[in-house]
């Protein structure tokens, strides 16, 4: 595993541009937030479309394009994709099962000082309630590239959630694509198992393990019901409590889902709770305002 140099959202852009060289059906649609120097635009300008600040129209037009045989990838910030265009996602990704992939950076509070309008702590709840959507929250460049490749090859609806500019090294995984659970460390028998979700949940879990090496650590990349059901089967083979760390509200997140899938097991969530961050600060400072930091994770493992 080579060291990462790209954030999740940049890894998406580069991987899709790479894949498009071999697959003429791949299209890249942006809603004015793709940034300058987009690698897909540079490599395939005839298949790159900045449709402007029109998220609903972008998702619905992607539906028309997919219906005609194309594989559109559409991207805008998570709050605008999952919330503003939620009805379009329901109809496109869910009801029509269209081969459209939505890539949503700025998930959680990675928008930090940009304020609450640019935060998204509700996207997993929205997308998880739409049947048939594959939901991924990759950690690091390699995992993000793998998830994008899988989405492009599948022709099925995907929602891929990333942060902003943070760069992390993915955990090693076997094969071309991470399975339902990537075990970083299985932990001592009976020890608490950290279950990490997404970029920041995984960062915190790794930091917690540095403090307490006896803990187990299971990383999840796919968060839809089908994948979480498989993950739950694997997690059920452990015996300790499960502490799920995720940059999302408790409602509709992975912890809530796992608690339902694992009745009788103690599942504790470390998440963003119910507050609305109203101050500035960097990403980690805003997370701390929500009680989502290393002390909170360590406290939950005791």
């Amino acid at each position, binding site marked *: 595993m080579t060291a990462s140099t790209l954030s999740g959202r940049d890894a998406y852009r580069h991987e899709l541009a790479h894949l498009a060289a071999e697959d003429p059906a791949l299209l890249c649609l942006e809603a004015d937030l793709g940034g300058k120097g987009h690698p897909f635009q540079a490599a395939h300008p005839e298949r790159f479309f900045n*449709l402007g600040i*029109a998220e609903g*129209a972008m998702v619905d037009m992607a539906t*028309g*394009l997919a*219906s005609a045989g194309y594989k559109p990838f559409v991207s805008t910030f998570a709050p605008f994709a999952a919330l503003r265009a939620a009805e379009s996602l329901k*109809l496109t990704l869910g*009801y029509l099962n269209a081969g459209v992939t939505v890539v949503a950076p700025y998930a959680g509070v990675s928008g930090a000082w940009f304020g609450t309008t640019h935060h998204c702590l509700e996207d997993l709840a929205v997308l998880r309630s739409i049947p048939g959507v594959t939901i991924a929250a990759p950690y690091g460049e390699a995992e993000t590239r793998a998830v994008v490749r899988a989405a492009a090859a599948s022709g099925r609806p995907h929602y891929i959630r990333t942060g902003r500019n943070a760069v992390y090294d993915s955990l090693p995984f076997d094969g071309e694509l991470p399975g339902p659970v990537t075990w970083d460390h299985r932990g001592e028998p009976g020890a608490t198992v950290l279950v990490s979700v997404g970029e920041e949940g995984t960062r915190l879990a790794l930091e917690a393990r540095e403090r307490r090496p006896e803990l187990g650590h299971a990383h999840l990349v796919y968060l839809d019901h089908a994948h979480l059901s498989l993950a739950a089967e694997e997690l059920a083979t452990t015996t300790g409590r499960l502490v799920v760390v995720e940059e999302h509200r408790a409602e509709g997140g992975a912890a809530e889902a796992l608690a339902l899938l694992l009745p009788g097991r103690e599942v504790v969530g470390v998440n963003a709770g119910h507050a609305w961050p109203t101050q500035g600060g960097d990403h980690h400072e805003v997370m701390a305002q929500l009680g989502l930091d290393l002390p909170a994770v360590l406290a939950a493992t005791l």
Partner: protein
Amino acid sequence: MTVAVDTPVDLAARAAEARRLVVDMAASPRGCHLGGSLSVLDVLIAALHRASLGDGTEVVLSKGHAAAGLYAALHVSGILPENPAPLYGQLGHPYTGHPGPKVPGVRFPTGSLGHGVPYAAGWAMARRLGGLPGLGIAVAGDGELQEGLVWETCQVAAAQRLGNFVLVVDRNGGQNDGMVADISPLPDLAARFAAFGFDTVEVDGHDLARLGEVFGADRTGAERPLAVIADTVKGKGVPAVEGKAGSHYVTIDAARAAKWKRLIR
């Protein structure tokens, strides 16, 4: 250049037959959106006939609450083999109050207003990307124009120079709770579309010959999308309800349906 179309007489006969089917659906246990189904029928008959030429033209009924009109138009156009009227709204059959892709001839789910417009624009974009002929035709209601998604798509379609995208407005003047003019008026509608960068045309939405000319026009090489403002009558063809806002959703008994059907010409 125009593409060949049937004579208006042929299409008029189809439209009359479809109107009788819509009345049958109003006489179903569910009732139906009668007024808007009857107002949009001629537009649908003409647009579906244009699509039947086989060049890849797709017709999307964006005002999906007029599903009864769409099912009837699909049936009389030979696209939907079975008669949907006895099955409308019934368990085990796909003829729901707003259409979905389980119905032959329907590609997209509509009825949550606004979405059919970008679906058709996306279809037009795909045809253009592939260097293929064919139009993406969205049929919207005038009340539907209150949805921001419509104008969002108009902005995008003009910017992308989708000359093969056609947005038809079934301007019947009514909406669920009353008249469009009373709830959220649309003054200078043609000028609005023109300002967005559309070609515009205003037509009698019940003149099948004129509609055939409009839909048959060759838009190869066109760079401006086309807005067709079709002036129609809510409840068209059934004198008892023509022009009445109360025709929006109607449930009638079999005797009244039989009487109304005899009056349809």
